[in-house]
């Protein structure tokens, strides 16, 4: 049956409007107060008033602007204050939100060079590195956006297949879109609900115990800025693994970052 082209275009336009609605809604202009706070924080940083800069950046985070650049600036302020642990924590938060921010990676490397403990890098298998190379290249939000767009594209491709003459491209595009949709959705869900947790030592020196009590044996000591994989949590304690050593750390000595 013939369907006028103008009618089909109307459907596509309608679908695009539905999908772009949330994105438009999220790009609202920040309020003047927020702008002023950001500018003031940057000014304090430039003037060397780092305590004020830290307070202002923290305020921006508390009002919900949990963006990579804000965490990055906060990390810079902490680093200039000499607090390596807090700066690495902020940089890791920023990495989650802005994984491809080159300045952030450079500063994180500089901050890690200040850490006293030598940490072996976690080695992943070559197969995992090849198959999941993209896993930490996008932020969870970006995975979400990709999933929504892939969802829309797949639906539109199905609609297009109903009206367009039979051709070889649409089935392939449909398969690619489905793959993208599954991958991005799975990544979004994993990064959101099952993130890799990293404990960053905040105290200048922290003891790692064999159990969840200060009375247990001190297995080893770690220092400010050391990053450890969180394996398990218990009330007031986190079980960490670093350089093939494992033990329990008081929660007050570390900040846990979800990547």
């Amino acid at each position, binding site marked *: 049956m013939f369907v006028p082209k103008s009618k089909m275009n109307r459907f596509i336009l309608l679908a695009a409007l*539905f999908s772009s609605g*949330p994105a438009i809604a999220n790009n609202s202009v920040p309020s003047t107060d927020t702008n002023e706070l950001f500018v003031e924080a940057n000014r304090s940083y430039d003037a060397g008033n780092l305590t004020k800069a830290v307070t202002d950046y923290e305020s921006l985070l508390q009002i919900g*602007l949990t*963006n990579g650049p804000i965490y990055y600036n906060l990390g*810079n302020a902490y680093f200039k204050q000499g607090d390596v642990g807090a700066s690495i924590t902020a940089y890791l938060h920023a990495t989650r939100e802005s994984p491809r921010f080159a300045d952030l990676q450079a*500063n994180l490397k500089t901050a890690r*060079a200040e850490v006293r403990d030598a940490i072996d890098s976690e080695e992943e298998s070559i197969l995992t590195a090849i198959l999941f190379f993209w896993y930490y290249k996008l932020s969870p939000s970006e995975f979400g956006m990709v999933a929504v767009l892939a969802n829309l594209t*797949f639906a*539109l491709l199905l609609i297009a297949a109903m009206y367009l003459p039979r051709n070889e491209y649409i089935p392939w595009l449909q398969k690619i879109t489905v793959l993208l949709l599954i991958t991005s959705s799975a990544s979004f869900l994993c990064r959101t609900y099952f993130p890799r947790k990293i404990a960053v030592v905040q105290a200048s020196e922290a003891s790692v115990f064999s159990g969840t009590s200060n009375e247990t044996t001190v297995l080893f000591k770690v220092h400010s800025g050391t990053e450890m994989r969180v394996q398990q949590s218990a009330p007031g304690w986190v079980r960490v693994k670093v350089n093939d050593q494992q033990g329990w750390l008081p929660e007050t000595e570390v900040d846990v970052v979800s990547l």
Partner: protein
Amino acid sequence: MRTMALNLCKTLTFLTLSFLPALATAAVQANVSRTEMTVEDQLSYQIIVQGRQGGTPDVAVIQNFEVYSRGQSTQMQVINGQVNSSITYNYILVPKREGTLAIPEVPIQFGNTVAKTQAITIRVLPPNTKPKSEKPVFLEVVVSNKKPYINQPITYTWRIYRRVRLTNADANLPEFEGFIVEETREQNDYTTNVGGNRYEVSEIKKILIPQEAGQFELPSSSVTVDLMANSSGRRPRGDIFDDFFGRTKTIRKVLRSDPIRIEVQALPTPAEDSSGLVGTASIKSRVTKSNVLVGESLTLTIRIQAEGNWKSVKAPTIDITDKFKVYSDKPVHHELEPENSPRGIIDFSMALVPIQAGTVTIAAIPFTFFNPEKAAYETIMTTSHQLTIRPAAQKESLSLTDKTTQNGSQNSKKRIEVLGEDILPIYRQPDALDPPINFRKPLWFVALITPWLLFMGIKSRKNHLNLLATDVGLKRKKEAYRNATQSLHNINVSAPNSVQIQEFARLLKEYLGHHFNVTGGALTRSEIASTLALSPIKAEVIEQTLKLLGVAEALEYAGPCSSSSSSESFDLKSSKALLNQLEKSLQEA
């Protein structure tokens, strides 16, 4: 048995008598081996404690002497059953200075009581004034110059001469305030002849560079040694059997040098372009090529051989930047064996790239320094160099292979040197304040669901249209009401006449025919009555429909004469409502 009891009594009596002195008052006495000595000598000091045990002399109170312990010995005597015991503490005392020095009362603590030795006065004379050649060991400290200029290095030489065996030598060199001290090699050992006697000499040298003008005193240095001397004198000195049979004795000696006064002179007003050298120097220069192309590099090397503070010499100034691009290299220092003072060679190299063609002369390069022997600044010059610069065959290419590569190898490239580390600046773009995406908002759920609702809607409609395209009966049924209402618009409802009533009856038949998928024009009133009777339409609606059709048939078959009365009895507005009722009933069915 009786014998055993007697022996036991004897033993107990002996032990009781043995321990009685410990309970008595202690007698403490101090002895010295001599009361007059030179500052280089030592004396033996004994503290003898009689009658009590357990105390230790506190020799820390002896301030004028260096005190070395030589152990202790215990004596016990039993005379006619009377037991006398004494402990002797032995020390060696070495005077710290000349003069009348006191060995104070030395306290010894016995439980709650303190016993003290008597004080002893010792007269310490100046060192032995015998000629050095008669001494078995002596210390000598000399400086190369007692009136140097600022920055003029002087050599501080410390020598110990010996012709006896020494052990446990402990040298104590002073601090040199007001001087920069440069160490030379560790120690120089050699043999020399002093006054016909052969001495073994150990020598230590230090380079002192005065930093400010004025009077300075280099403090005395000292060395503590143990001299090995024959106790019997029967065997010649140094016989190996002496040690083996214990026939040698050691004598501790402290050798001291005199302080040395140094008068550091200020430099005259510095000459312009002074290199900072205080000493003597020679200079020469050379170029690697004298015939080069424009843009081709050559190397100019200025070699300065200097004696004095040669390490701190500044590079000579050379002003040829109007003719060459100059790329200076790091100076290379070669240290030479010092003679009177430190000396060395410094090579200042620079790559020169000619800018323009022609004959260019690199003028003689001056080098100014302060000569302490002449007490004046002196300027020496290199030779000049004449270069022929030919035009370049092509545009200037600044490939400074002379400077950056050696042997023309690319492997000699250096890695970029990291001079400092710092973090990169903060992020200032306004997009830092973009609100983060919150996927927990319902809007995102809508965004996910909407494409699929749209798809399902479109799919459903497409299926419906396909069904209509294939099922004619269904299509007629779906379009029956629409066609009927469209036709109804052409009928004047307010003033109906017979034609319009007949037209309405026709469209009603067509409507019913479409609905029941039969040709509308072929239906008679009776067929319609029977069809409607089978449908779940209300009886009154059927009755009205049949009535309407009856009126229409009467008009059609009775002719125009009856039209006026029939048309008057026909209400077309209610007939339109009848059509709606029929549609509603059929849809519900």
